[in-house]
């Protein structure tokens, strides 16, 4: 199993991620792309800021990828996550998984994003016109 895990302050590149996981041994690739929504509970979001505890975030992401590769027969896995300021429509996260069979790719990709949102030390702050708030989705 071949993995690439990265935190980045600059724009994530979907095509670069897809190209990295694509290989002639794989039959299916599943890609999850998060995007910054323009509203939360009806309130207009101006921009987002992501903060990461970088060393630990990388190490938790590595664990998640390793777990996924134990659970499902996957060939390549990529996780790129943004940090810093993101405008509406920008991409906070890209997860790409290539496998010989599509079910493994789907399952692993979903496992990675679900687990990432529970365990990886990255925090999102939503900036509204009249204030800002640290998001706490998983209390």
């Amino acid at each position, binding site marked *: 199993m071949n993995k690439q895990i990265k935190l980045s302050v600059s724009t994530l590149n979907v095509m670069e991620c897809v190209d990295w996981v694509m290989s002639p041994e794989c039959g299916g690739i599943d890609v999850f792309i998060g995007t910054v929504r323009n509203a939360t509970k009806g309130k207009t979001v101006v921009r987002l800021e992501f*903060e990461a505890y970088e060393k630990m975030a990388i190490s938790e992401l590595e664990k998640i990828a390793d777990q996924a590769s134990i659970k499902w027969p996957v060939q390549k896995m990529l996780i790129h996550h943004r940090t810093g300021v993101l405008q509406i429509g920008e991409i906070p996260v890209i997860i790409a998984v290539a496998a010989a069979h599509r079910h493994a790719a789907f399952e692993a990709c979903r496992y990675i994003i679900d687990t990432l949102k*529970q365990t990886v030390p990255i925090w*999102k702050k939503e900036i509204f016109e009249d204030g800002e708030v640290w998001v706490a989705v998983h209390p």
Partner: protein
Amino acid sequence: MKVNILAFGIAKDIFGGPAIDVELFNDATVFNLKFLLEKQYPQLKKLATYMVAVNNEYALDGDTVHERDEIAIIPPVSGG
């Protein structure tokens, strides 16, 4: 012993900065540390939950902390 505590997300706001120093007795546990911090920063208790990481791993309440450990307060995460 003096330990340095890193703070992220809302914990940074609560501590008023990205790191604080606290004075702890030797062989203190994560539980002792949390107790002390919650006394000094009562707002911590208002978080639905928070974790402590020791040397980049989630720690349990019973784990011992040491002087040179890298300790961090991990409020509820919201990546992705």
